[in-house]
């Protein structure tokens, strides 16, 4: 019954989306009068979709094996958290989650949006409904999550063991909130373009959504990076895998949008550009979803390849992105530009920021698709890996970091005051770090050295905007900016330190052997069997000592019987100045165990930086929303 109720809710929600679109197109009376109805319909659509998703989660929690999706992706012996997460650890469930976020975002826009005029809001909700309708059709026609299975099996096939990790419970939903949150920026931009109302009000309506989506994408990418780092046992934190790039591209576009939307909201500038970025950001989300879901690119995220589904999503994204870009091309001549600004100004800095981010986006987009382009046009099979991305995107990203030393210190419109005093703290710290790195570590590569230099310079530079302000009266949004930029500095320091100073040891060791890695002496004591709720494992005991400090590490090689898979569980010890990372491999014929050890100084700064960036974004979001509310109150009081 639950499955049928879920399916019914999904059909009803799709019908409401169709109604919402029809109303927005002007059917059922003048558009102005219909906006109240459109709002109600959007809320209903959100509630029904949430209901359908709740039904699916209930089916997974009850292990209802008569539902095909549950039987294929769950197991009655699984811990409840993974039953719960199993609801979106598969194609159909994750697409339902996607649509649910889309519909709920539309509902929230309908309930709370007060900055846009009624007609622009109506047009935006129409665009949101058009997006939802396509994805409802996709679910109902090609990916029904509620399909029954007869006869029902007893146990189910289980969830890929790599995905049986607490991280999975949160990583996809977080990313999806980010991906799909950008849909509102897309819809509002489409609404504004349709109504020829590209104004600062549009930017202010878009901004909280862009901020929220960007915070979620930042968290999702940070969590995904850490998951790959500790779960895959390769000791790396970013692999330029197509699926990673699929999440990085919307993030890059959203980061650019986040900055340009401020120029439009505050100064009325960069109107056409901001609209284009809003379209591109969600387009990148759809492209990302397509790349992941169609399995078109070879990836470690080996999702099932399904040409039918791929074709369906491709048709949807061509329709939506193509339609929006045609609209943009038609309306761009009508978009009036706002107040002019000089090159050396906050706006000027933000334009360069946007250009650099766009170039990085282009580099990642091209690199991700190049294997396809090369094969289609030149008939050559090749793969594009870290050497390309690191050497092309790396220097541009460092250029962006260099800009960050200067940009936030500049004033709006024009800045003729001497700049050097404002730049001095950052430059000084950068020079000190450069000299120190040349003395302490003369042998490291150019990119890591530049990273250390710029990262060190950015620490004081990112705090500079607080200088000379009354800290109590500083708006929360400025605190958010400072915190996010500080996060960038911290993350760059972590990345540079990891690539400059990591020590690696790959050995075949017998119990009793001792291996040195970095400052650590690691004694390989023994290998013992271990067991968990749905796995058995071989567990090594390593005694690592540094000075007087001693720790025990227990890396495992885990075997999951259902489906039969072996995973390596790395053992990681985190101390204030880095991580010791150990992986147990296989046993060779002479009875020696493959042992992989890394000492990674300050590697944790990478994810700490990511969290700081997200926190900064969250702070800015809260600050903006609170300020708007108090402003609205003041206006209302003035009218009373």
């Amino acid at each position, binding site marked *: 019954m639950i499955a049928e109720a879920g399916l019914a809710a999904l059909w009803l929600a799709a019908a409401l989306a169709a109604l919402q679109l029809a109303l927005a197109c002007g059917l059922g009376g003048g558009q102005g009068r219909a906006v109240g109805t459109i709002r109600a319909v959007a809320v209903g659509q959100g509630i029904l979709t949430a209901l359908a998703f709740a039904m699916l989660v209930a089916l997974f929690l009850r292990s209802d094996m008569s539902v095909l999706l549950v039987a294929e992706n769950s197991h009655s012996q699984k811990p409840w958290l993974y039953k719960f997460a199993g609801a979106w650890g598969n194609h159909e469930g994750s697409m339902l989650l996607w649509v649910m976020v889309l519909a709920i975002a539309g509902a929230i826009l309908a309930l709370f949006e007060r900055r846009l005029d009624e007609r622009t809001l109506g047009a935006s909700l129409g665009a949101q409904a058009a997006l939802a309708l396509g994805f409802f059709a996709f679910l109902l026609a090609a990916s029904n999550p509620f399909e029954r299975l007869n006869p029902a099996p007893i146990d189910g096939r289980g969830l890929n063991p790599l995905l049986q990790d607490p991280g999975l419970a949160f990583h996809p939903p977080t990313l999806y909130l980010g991906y799909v949150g950008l849909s509102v920026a897309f819809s509002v931009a489409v609404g504004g373009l349709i109504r020829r109302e590209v104004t600062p009000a549009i930017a202010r309506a878009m901004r909280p959504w862009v901020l929220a989506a960007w915070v979620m994408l930042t968290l999702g990418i940070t969590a995904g990076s850490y998951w790959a780092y500790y779960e895959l046992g390769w000791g790396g934190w970013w692999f330029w895998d197509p699926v990673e790039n699929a999440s990085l591209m919307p993030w890059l576009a959203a980061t650019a949008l986040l900055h340009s939307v401020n120029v439009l909201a505050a100064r009325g500038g960069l109107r056409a550009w901001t609209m284009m970025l809003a379209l591109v950001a969600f387009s990148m989300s759809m492209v990302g979803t397509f790349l992941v879901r169609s399995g*078109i690119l070879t990836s470690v995220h080996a999702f099932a390849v399904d040409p039918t589904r791929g*074709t369906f999503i*491709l048709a949807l994204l061509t329709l939506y992105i193509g339609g929006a870009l045609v609209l943009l*091309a038609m309306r761009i001549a009508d978009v009036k530009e706002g107040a002019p600004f000089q090159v050396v100004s906050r706006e000027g800095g933000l334009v360069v920021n946007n250009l650099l981010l766009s170039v990085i986006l282009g580099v990642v987009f091209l690199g991700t698709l190049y294997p*396809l382009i090369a094969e289609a046009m030149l008939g050559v099979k090749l793969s594009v890996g870290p050497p390309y991305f690191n050497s092309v995107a790396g220097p541009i990203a460092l250029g962006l970091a260099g800009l960050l030393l200067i940009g936030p210190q500049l004033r709006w419109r024009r800045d003729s005051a001497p700049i050097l005093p404002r730049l001095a703290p950052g430059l000084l710290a950068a020079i000190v770090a450069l000299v120190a790195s040349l003395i302490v570590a003369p042998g490291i590569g150019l990119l890591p050295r530049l990273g250390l230099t710029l990262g060190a310079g950015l620490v004081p530079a990112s705090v500079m905007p607080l200088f000379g302000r009354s800290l109590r009266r500083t708006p929360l949004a400025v605190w958010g900016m400072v915190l996010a930029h500080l996060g960038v500095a911290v993350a760059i320091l972590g990345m540079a330190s990891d690539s400059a100073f990591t020590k690696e040891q790959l050995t075949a060791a017998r119990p009793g052997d001792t291996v040195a890695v970095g400052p650590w002496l690691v004694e390989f004591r023994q290998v013992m069997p271990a067991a968990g709720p749905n796995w058995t494992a071989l567990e090594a005991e390593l005694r690592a000592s540094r000075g007087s400090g001693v720790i025990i590490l227990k890396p495992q090689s885990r075997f999951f019987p259902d489906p039969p898979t072996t995973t390596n569980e790395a053992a990681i010890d985190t101390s204030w100045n880095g991580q010791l990372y150990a992986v147990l491999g296989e046993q060779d014929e002479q009875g020696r165990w493959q042992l992989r050890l890394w000492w990674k100084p300050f590697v944790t700064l990478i994810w700490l930086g990511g969290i700081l960036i997200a926190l900064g974004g969250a702070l800015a979001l809260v600050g903006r929303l609170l300020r708007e509310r108090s402003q609205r109150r003041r206006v209302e009081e003035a009218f009373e």
Partner: protein
Amino acid sequence: MSRAIRFVPLAILLLFVAIVAWRLAIPDDTKIRSRMTGQPVPAFALAPATHGVQGLSSPDLATGQPHLVNVFASWCVPCIAEAPLLMELKRNGVAIDAVAVRDKPADVAEFLGRHGNPFQRIGSDPESMVQIALGSSGVPESFIVDGKGIIRYQHMGPIESGDIPALLREWEKAR
């Protein structure tokens, strides 16, 4: 802004759609085939993999008659599923030789005892040297070698019942 620039994003989208549509229409062949197909079998000589069988060397594969060379191992689970189908090929008159990869004599004997022995000769390849020389990507894998010792056909992965007709066709071609 000039008119042409307005349509640049649209052009990029169309290029993207064209290329991925091409890939959806013609799915990628992710198998990396052996470059040895059409080449003579590399020279090798392998000791018997267990008691009571003959070893395998490259001259054994250039006898004027075609051979099917099965790369397998007793520790390989798909090889168990493949075993009855090799017996069926043998019943159809296919001469089958084997390379046992990284195996132990006792394990090979147990495997043959349990799943039958369709092989004329079984060479032991303890370091995967011959497997790599043949360009085999894993176990199980099968090669059809013609009477002159030239590799004519490569079958990757376990032989399944649906593969039998194709294999018999290739076998006839190699005669």
